[in-house]
């Protein structure tokens, strides 16, 4: 047991972890510049326990490397065991102890952010009200059942179930209230529907004369990929009906209509979209203001005035760059605007990035703790130095 604790607390482990982080950062930077988006790089190299890294120039040869999560976990354990548990309990070490606790809090905030933080986007014109927003990355297939009075019941299939499906694989979605089973298949990360011409064949189904063409996935910004897939509804006693789904919603600019089919005597809709999340409050964009640097299309500033309804409470707030709204576990950052390709647009919309992260403020608190720890430690060192100098002078 002692040997294990010694190993976990050792400087050798610290150096191994730091070296691993250096290698991972180096590879991740190169990959992000060449073949992967920032999001994918984060997922593959830093939000993982292990990385299977192909060796350049050696086809088929892969090297397993520790992933970011493993390295950070080891560093946390190393820090806890070496810097806190095994630290000599002396008053003179209190500053170091507090500093290590602060670093441990920082690591914990990173872990919590990794595990539970979600990012989404909400776009709205002035006057628009919103109670939901779209996740920045995650997809879902949704089946719509039309109810009375303009209400719709949504049956949701999370993207984790179908993203990465290979040729010949499919996921069947079913629910006791659905009079059909829905097969989701032929998922393509970046796709566009194209007319099927007579001079070429395609390996995916052709629907209404169109097929899903596989486009090169966007590098650098995964969220601009327009994913697509096929859905086949199987209704008892009827021939299967297949539709093309294409996730192109971009509120407030565009909301794609669902693919429609008939089952049990009524129409149903199916759609592929970014996961929709609900806000715990309602907002309305009252005013959106922006200005460019003179002679450029670079925004000097952009800001939104919004009204927030939370139950019976009503409040107004300005959201601007670096001054987000924090409310009910949601942080709304002023992150974008549009349309950016139309210099003559008379009406602009604002885009908020919405982050849900319970550890949002932890890094700040960690920094305060670290600062206090360092202040105590260096103050003590300074006093000791001054006292020593005085003793030397007296001697």
């Amino acid at each position, binding site marked *: 047991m002692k040997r294990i604790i010694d190993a976990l607390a050792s400087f050798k482990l610290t150096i191994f972890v730091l070296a691993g982080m250096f290698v991972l950062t180096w590879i991740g930077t190169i990959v992000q510049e060449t073949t992967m988006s920032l999001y994918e790089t984060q997922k593959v190299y830093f939000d993982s326990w292990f990385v299977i890294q192909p060796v350049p120039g050696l086809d088929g040869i892969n090297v397993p490397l520790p992933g970011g999560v493993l390295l950070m976990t080891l560093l946390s354990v190393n820090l806890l065991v070496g810097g806190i548990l095994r630290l000599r309990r002396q008053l003179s070490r209190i500053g170091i102890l507090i500093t290590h606790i602060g670093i441990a809090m920082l690591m914990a905030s990173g872990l919590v952010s990794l595990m539970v933080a979600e990012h989404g986007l909400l776009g709205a014109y002035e006057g628009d009200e919103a109670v939901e927003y779209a996740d920045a990355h995650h997809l879902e297939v949704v089946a719509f059942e039309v109810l009375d009075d303009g209400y719709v019941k949504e049956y949701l299939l999370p993207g984790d*179930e179908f993203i990465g499906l290979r040729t010949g694989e499919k996921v069947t979605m079913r629910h006791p209230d659905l009079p059909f089973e829905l097969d989701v298949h032929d998922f393509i990360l970046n796709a566009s529907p194209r007319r099927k011409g007579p001079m070429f064949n395609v390996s995916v189904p052709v629907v209404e004369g169109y097929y899903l063409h596989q486009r090169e996935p966007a590098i650098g910004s995964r969220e601009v990929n327009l994913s697509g897939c096929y859905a086949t509804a199987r209704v008892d006693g009827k021939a299967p009906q297949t539709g093309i789904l294409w996730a192109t919603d971009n509120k407030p600019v565009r909301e794609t209509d669902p693919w429609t089919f008939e089952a049990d005597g009524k129409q149903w809709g199916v759609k592929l979209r970014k996961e929709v999340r609900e806000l715990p409050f309602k907002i309305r964009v009252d005013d959106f203001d922006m200005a460019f640097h003179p002679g450029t299309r670079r925004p000097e500033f952009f800001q939104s005035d919004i009204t927030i309804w939370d139950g019976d409470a009503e409040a107004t707030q300005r959201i601007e760059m670096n001054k987000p709204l924090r409310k009910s576990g949601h942080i709304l950052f002023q992150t974008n605007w549009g349309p950016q390709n139309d210099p003559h647009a008379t009406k602009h919309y604002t885009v908020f990035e919405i982050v849900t992260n319970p550890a949002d403020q932890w890094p700040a608190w960690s920094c305060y703790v670290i600062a206090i720890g360092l202040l105590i430690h260096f103050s003590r060192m300074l006093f000791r130095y001054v006292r020593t100098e005085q003793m030397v002078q007296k001697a």
Partner: protein
Amino acid sequence: MFVPLAATCAVVLPSCGRQPVRVVDVSETRVVKKDLRLGRNLAERFGTGSSSSRPPRQSDSPAGGGGMPSLPPLGWKLPDGWSEKPKTQFRMGSFASPGNGDCSVSVAGGDLRENVNRWRGQFGQQPLDAAGIAELTKRPVMNGRVNGHLVECRGAYTSMRGEKIDDAALLGVVIPVGPTVSMFVKFVGPSATVVEQRENFFALCDSLYFESAGSNAPAPSGGRLSLAWSLPDDWQEVPSGSRYRTVTAAPKSNPAVQCWVSQLSGNGGGVRNNVNRWLGEIGQPYLGPTAIAALPTIKVLDRDSVLIEAFGNYKGQNGESRDAGLLGVVCEHDSNMIFIKMVGPSDAVRAEKENFTNFCTSLEAR
């Protein structure tokens, strides 16, 4: 010990246990107030018109992707013996064929099923269901640029104005021209007339085009690469009879030789099909994948592009045959296929080979 073991698992485990079919019992549902638009066809949902294959862009305006487009004037080549009639509010083109045939070109909204069944109703026929619509024959029209749905009816016909023909026939082609609209080419007349004029009707459909500024025969739209080139000293640009050509050139000293560049979006049928089509034109045998892969290549637009040389009897699309040579390059450039082709008397083509390759390698994307 732990790290190598975990690493091995990480390598091995993902390859195990994948099933081709997985059943997921979804539990997550929610009820929301939503303005849901059901029943739209694919072109309406995605804003993919006949010539538009680009996806919506993040920056598209809210006005994009829907509504009745403002269509440019329509052009056509009238079949022999046909005559034009005055256009009306609803007819972009109106024609009469020998034998009292009436042909109209119009644009309207509504989905395919609705319009096809309207035509069938004029013949007293039962409406088609979705499966019946899906089985409609598709036929390339507008010089092969788009596929139209072919509709045929025969029987007693009653026009919208109440005119009746006892033994009538209808040939119709529905051509999608925008996200929510289609162009309808409808030919109605006595059945004997329609049978007799069938090929002329298809020739008319094939000749249709939208006029654009500066050209009465616009190039096919959609993602074509803008190219620049430099002609060899002895070459000059010559007028082209085809709107598919980016440029046509001919050597001053060998005007019987012509070289041109054309483009198709997508894979244009692929390298092999196009190479074999060219070889077929020159009476040469079909090449298999291995032989295609072994063909020499030259750099065109920074891509290794297949170069073919063929000599034999050239058979043009009009059926003429003569001793000829063909030099061709097929360049796969992102989402476009670029073809550079030179044909002429075999000796002259041989003499121009160096100029041809220089011309090919001079191409640049603008």
